[in-house]
C-alpha cells in the first residue's frame, strides 16, 4: 500500500534538492556546546558528587525537554493546521489519515535537529564521565520530542473540533480575550501540548534523578513521554478524519475576523508607527511586521516576562542569568528581518526604486525595536533588585539586539527567505558565547 501524500512529499524533496542544511543547527550546537557549558551544565565544574550531578541532570534535562516540547507544539501547528499542503488540498478531496501520516513523517524529519541539538549540548556530561546521566538526559529530550510530536497533532485537531463545538462556545468566550472566538481554541492548543508534555517530561527527568541515585525503577519513568506520544498518535487519525478539512473554513473565519477588525481606524494603528513617520522604509517594515508578524512584537513582551523572572533576584548571578535568558529571546526576536523579507520578491525594491541598504537598515531598526519587549522587563526587574548592576546587562543586550538585527537584515537581503538558515547558527553561537562569557565573568 502506497501513501500518495508520502510519495508527493518525497518527490517535492527530490526536486528541491535541499542540501545538507540540517547540518547547520547541529554544527552551531557543536560550536556552542563548550561556550554554553558554564551556563547549562555548571554543576560539572565542581567535584562529581552524585546528588549534585543527579539534581543538575534532572534540572537541565527537564529544561531542554520543555524547550524541545514547546518548539514542537508550535511546529505541529504550523505543519498541520497552517501547513503548505492545505492551500493545495483545499481544491481536492483528501484522505485525512493518510495525509496525517505524511505530514507527521515530514515534521519528524524536518524537526529531528531539535533532539539532536539537545544531545550535542549535553555532550559535556559524557565527556566528564557521567555516561548514565548523559544517556538519561538525552532520553528525556528525545522522549519530549516524541511526546510533543504525538500529542501535538492530536491537540491541534481537537482544538479545531472545540472551535466548532456549541457546547464549548461559552468557555471559549471566557478565555479568548480580544481574539475571535473561533481562534480561542487554537491559541491555547500549544499551551495544552506543552503542559501535557511538560508534565511527563518532568516525571521522566525526576525518574532519571532517582535512577542516578540508585533507585532503578526511576529509569522506567523515561517511557512515560514516548508512551504518551504514542497514545496521542493513535487518537490523531480519527480526529484528522473529522477535523482536517473543516480547519480550512475555521482558518478563513479567523483570518476574516482579524481583517474585519482592521477595517476600523483604531485597528489600523501600528505598533511604534510614530517612529517611522518620516522614514518610508521603516514605516513599511513596521507596518509589515505588525500586520503580518504580530506574534513577534507581542511574543517579545512575553519573553520579557520570563527574563524578568530571571532578573528578580539579589543573587550575584542574576545579571548573567538576565543576559542568558533575555539574550536568547533577543537572538530569537532579532530574526524578524528574515521573516519580513520572506514575502518580498527580488524585483520589488528595484521596482519601488528603494535602496536595498536602507531597507536592510529599516529591518535592523525593527528587530532592535521589537527586541525591547524582551530586554526592558528583564532589565527593569534587575534594576529594582540590584540597582546599577543592571547597566552592564542593558548595554550587552542592546548591543546584541543591534548586531543580531543587522546580521539578520543582511542575511535577508542576500538570501531572502533562506536568510534564516544563515542567521540561526550564527545567532546560537553568538548567544552561547555572550552568555557563557558573562556567566564565567561573574563567577565568584
Amino acid at each position, binding site marked *: *500500500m*502506497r*501513501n*500518495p*501524500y508520502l*510519495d*508527493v512529499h518525497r*518527490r*517535492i524533496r527530490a*526536486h*528541491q534538492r535541499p542540501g545538507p542544511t540540517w547540518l547547520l543547527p547541529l554544527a552551531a550546537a557543536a560550536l556552542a556546546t563548550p561556550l554554553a557549558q558554564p551556563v547549562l551544565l555548571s554543576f560539572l565544574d565542581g567535584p562529581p558528587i552524585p546528588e549534585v550531578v543527579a539534581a543538575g541532570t534532572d534540572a537541565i534535562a527537564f529544561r531542554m525537554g520543555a524547550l524541545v516540547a514547546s518548539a514542537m507544539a508550535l511546529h505541529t501547528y504550523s505543519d498541520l493546521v497552517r501547513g503548505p499542503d492545505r*492551500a*493545495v*488540498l*483545499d*481544491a*481536492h*478531496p*483528501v*484522505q*485525512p489519515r*493518510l495525509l496525517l501520516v505524511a505530514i507527521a513523517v515530514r515534521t519528524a524529519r524536518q524537526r529531528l535537529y531539535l533532539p539532536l541539538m539537545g544531545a550535542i549540548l549535553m555532550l559535556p556530561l559524557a565527556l566528564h564521565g557521567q555516561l548514565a546521566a548523559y544517556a538519561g538526559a538525552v532520553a528525556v529530550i528525545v522522549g519530549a520530542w516524541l511526546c510533543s510530536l504525538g500529542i501535538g497533532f492530536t491537540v491541534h485537531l481537537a482544538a479545531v473540533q472545540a472551535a466548532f463545538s456549541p457546547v464549548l462556545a461559552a468557555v471559549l468566550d471566557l478565555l479568548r480575550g480580544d481574539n475571535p472566538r473561533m481562534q480561542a481554541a487554537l491559541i491555547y492548543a500549544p499551551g495544552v501540548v506543552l503542559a501535557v508534555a511538560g508534565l511527563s517530561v518532568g516525571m521522566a527527568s525526576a525518574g532519571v534523578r532517582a535512577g542516578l541515585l540508585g533507585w532503578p525503577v526511576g529509569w522506567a519513568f523515561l517511557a512515560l513521554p514516548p508512551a504518551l506520544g504514542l497514545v496521542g498518535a493513535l487518537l490523531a487519525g480519527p480526529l484528522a478524519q473529522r477535523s*482536517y*478539512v*473543516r480547519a*480550512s*473554513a475555521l482558518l*478563513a*473565519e479567523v483570518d*476574516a*475576523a482579524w*481583517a*474585519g*477588525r482592521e*477595517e476600523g481606524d483604531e485597528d489600523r494603528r501600528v505598533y511604534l508607527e510614530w517612529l517611522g513617520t518620516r522614514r518610508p522604509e521603516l514605516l513599511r517594515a513596521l507596518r509589515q511586521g505588525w500586520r503580518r508578524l504580530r506574534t513577534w512584537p507581542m511574543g517579545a513582551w512575553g519573553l520579557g516576562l520570563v527574563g524578568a523572572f530571571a532578573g528578580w533576584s539579589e543573587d550575584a548571578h542574576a545579571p548573567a542569568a538576565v543576559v542568558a535568558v533575555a539574550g536568547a529571546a533577543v537572538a530569537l526576536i532579532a530574526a524578524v528581518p528574515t521573516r519580513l523579507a520572506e514575502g518580498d520578491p527580488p524585483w520589488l525594491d528595484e521596482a519601488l526604486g528603494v535602496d536595498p541598504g536602507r531597507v536592510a537598515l529599516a529591518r535592523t531598526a525593527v528587530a532592535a525595536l521589537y527586541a525591547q519587549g524582551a530586554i526592558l522587563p528583564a532589565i527593569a526587574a534587575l534594576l529594582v533588585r540590584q540597582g546599577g548592576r543592571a547597566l552592564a546587562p542593558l548595554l550587552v543586550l542592546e548591543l546584541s539586539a543591534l548586531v543580531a538585527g543587522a546580521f539578520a537584515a543582511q542575511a535577508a537581503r542576500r538570501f531572502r527567505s533562506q536568510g534564516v538558515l544563515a542567521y540561526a547558527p550564527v545567532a546560537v553561537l553568538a548567544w552561547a558565547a555572550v552568555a557563557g562569557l558573562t556567566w564565567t565573568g561573574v563567577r565568584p
Partner: protein
Amino acid sequence: MSSSPLAPRASLEVEGLRKEYGRVVAVDQVSFRLMPGELVGLVGPNGAGKSTTFKMLSGQLLPSAGSARVLGVDVARDPAGARRHLGLVPENPALYEYLTAREMITFAARIRSEDPTAEPDAERVEAALAVAGLGADADRLIHEYSQGMHRKTALACALVAEPPVLLLDEALNGLDPASAERVLDVLHARCAAGATVLLSTHVLDTLARVADRVILIQRGRVSADLPASELEHVRHMLREDEAAPVPRT
C-alpha cells in the same frame, strides 16, 4: 426552495446563502439550483461576491446563513463529503510548486480515485494533460510556469477524475484563446455526459457560446438568473452597475 419528490435531483442547490464579515455583507440571499448537464455562468463586477460564493460552495468558508448542497450533501456540515463530488478551480489556484504538471495531475488523479494507494488510470492522466495542452512543459516544475500554465494545470487537476460537479472561479483567466476554446469544448463534453458546471468569468462572449444560463451577482445578491440567450440584457445591467455610484457601507 423545496423540490418535489418527483423532480430530478439538483446537482447544486444553493438556498439563502449569506456571508457577513462584521458589518460588511459580502453575499446575501443567494439562491439557485443547477441541474445535471447544465453549464451556468456566474457573472458580476469585481467584489460582487462571486468568489465568496464559490468558497462557501466548496466548504472553504462557512455561510453566516443559508445552505449549499452538492448532490444532496450539505457543504457546511460535511465539507469533506461534498468535496468528493467536486472539481474545483479557485480564483488563485495553489499547486505544489516543486512538482511537474504531470506529477501534480497524477497526484490529483490518485487522491480523487476510489483507491488512492493504487496507481491512477494513466489514460485519464494523459487526457487531462491533453486538456492542459502543456506539451513538453508538462515535465517542467510548476514554479517555472506562467500564470496561464498554472491555471491550465489546476484545470487539468479538477477535470482528471471527471467529477459530477465542476466549480470554476475565473478559470479561463490568463488562458490563450486556443486553450480557452479547448477547455470550453471539454466542459461542453462533460455537461453532455451529465456533469454540472458553474463557471465565473468576466468574458461574457465566452458564455454566449457554451452556457445554458447566466446568473448575475451584484453587491452580493442575485440580480438576474436568465437563459444565456438573454446575455445582452445581463451585459446592459453590468454597464448600468458600472455607471452607478458606489454605495457606502
